[in-house]
């Protein structure tokens, strides 16, 4: 589905980012895998090479505009183009509302929102020049329903990602660039493991499809939005959440 495409995938070291990198690679995309977690990134790279895929692993901090511009330039230098940006990197902190510090608020906003913004800002000019591109941002059911999982800062950052998508979609549509959001429900990743077993069971009982999402569920949604089957879709949010939040 993605033969000949070059995809920048942030958060590639684990969870949904890793699953997406592997799935994209199986669909013949070249992957630029970005993460702060160097070791996880190397593991992802090994997995991709083991299935004969091609990956350029980049250890970088997406909250740093300099880092983002540097890896964008590197990717363009090596591959000559970028067709897809999947902003998957994110953090979920569970801090109680009354205890969230200013610096923790800033950190969550920086990784979840500003990082996606910086990546879009750096890569969009190239997509605009080539008059094509696909950007997929990752929000969360928390960004719609608020406070269903993790802290308020997490929900707010993810809600803002949905708005970011709409703005980018409208700005970049004249250049043939599609921008959409995937909003995961509770997904089996390290993030979910940070909750207690009781919290996890409580969550599962509320899910109509009675299971947690797998990283692959999200990866398939991201693939759908990255490929040619969704060319007429932009500014939309795709909820992949087992039916737990319907709005």
């Amino acid at each position, binding site marked *: 589905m993605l033969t000949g495409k070059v995809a920048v995938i942030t958060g590639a070291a684990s969870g949904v980012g890793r699953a997406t990198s592997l799935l994209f690679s199986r669909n013949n995309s070249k992957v630029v895998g970005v993460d702060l977690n160097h070791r996880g990134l190397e593991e992802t790279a090994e997995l991709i090479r083991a299935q004969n895929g091609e990956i350029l692993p980049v250890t970088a901090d997406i909250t740093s505009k300099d880092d983002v511009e540097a890896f964008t330039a590197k990717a363009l230098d090596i591959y000559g183009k970028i067709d897809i940006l999947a902003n998957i990197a994110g953090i979920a902190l569970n801090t109680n509302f009354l205890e969230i510090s200013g610096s923790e608020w800033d950190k969550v906003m920086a990784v979840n929102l500003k990082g996606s913004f910086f990546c879009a800002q750096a890569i969009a000019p190239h997509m605009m020049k080539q008059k094509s591109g696909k950007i997929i941002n990752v929000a969360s059911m928390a960004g719609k329903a608020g406070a269903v999982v993790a802290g308020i800062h997490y929900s707010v950052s993810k809600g803002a990602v949905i708005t970011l998508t*709409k703005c980018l*979609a*409208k700005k970049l*549509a*004249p250049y*043939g660039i*599609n921008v959409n959001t995937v909003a995961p*429900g509770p997904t089996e990743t390290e993030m979910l493991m940070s909750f207690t077993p009781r919290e996890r069971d409580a969550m599962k009982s509320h899910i*109509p*499809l*009675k*299971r947690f*999402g*797998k990283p692959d*569920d999200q990866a*398939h*949604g991201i*693939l*759908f939005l990255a*490929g*040619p*089957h*969704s*060319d*007429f*879709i*932009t*500014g*939309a949010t*795709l*909820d*992949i*959440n*087992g*039916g737990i939040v*319907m709005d």
Partner: protein
Amino acid sequence: MRLKNKVAIVTGGGSGNGQGIAWGLSKEGAKVAVADLNLDGAQYTVSEMESEGLALKADVAERAEVENLLKDVLSRFGKVDILINNAGMALMQPFMEVDDELWGKTLRVNLTTTFVCSQVTAKQMIQDGGGNIICVSSIGGIRPLPPMSHYCAAKAGVILLAKTMALELAPHKIRVNAIAPGIIETPATRIRTQDPERREKYLANVPLKKIGAPADLVGTIIYLASADSEYVTGEVIRIDGGWAA
């Protein structure tokens, strides 16, 4: 071939979006039963299919006709995995001039068809241990579109019907989702989309500056009908070039 050996029913498959969807499903290996009031249209759709098809004449708002339709599908194909509630109609009429007949007909062809077909088919799907229902709503089910208040009401109804079905049928392993197309050019809408003044007005609202075609809906239908979306239910996917963003 993501739908190999699956059996799908497409209502209103004799033309336009339904036809495009039927062809798209068949390209992915599904056997497709095409139901339409217009048998000629259904037969034409089937004749152009890449896989096995079955053309059936039916008024899919009529329970007895839908039950017969399902009987024919089961007799021919043995099962039903996917139902595409595509039958619909869209006539423009300023709100103050909508008469009882147009109101009733619009609800009947868009919403009642979805209800009857879903209920009849779900009964079989429950027996068989699961299934997949996709309802065709519209951007008009999400945003007001004068002068189509009757249509918007019906299409909005389709969305909440789909979501409620999703919750009630989840225990039976049936996923229910909806698509909300924007302006799509079909034989039914061509008179509007080809009118230069109207066309310009439509395009002004669409960020991607394009009028859609039935083929633009296929990719999303395949995603929702296949195992790729197995964690998606109660969802409405807008296919509108960014109009309702």
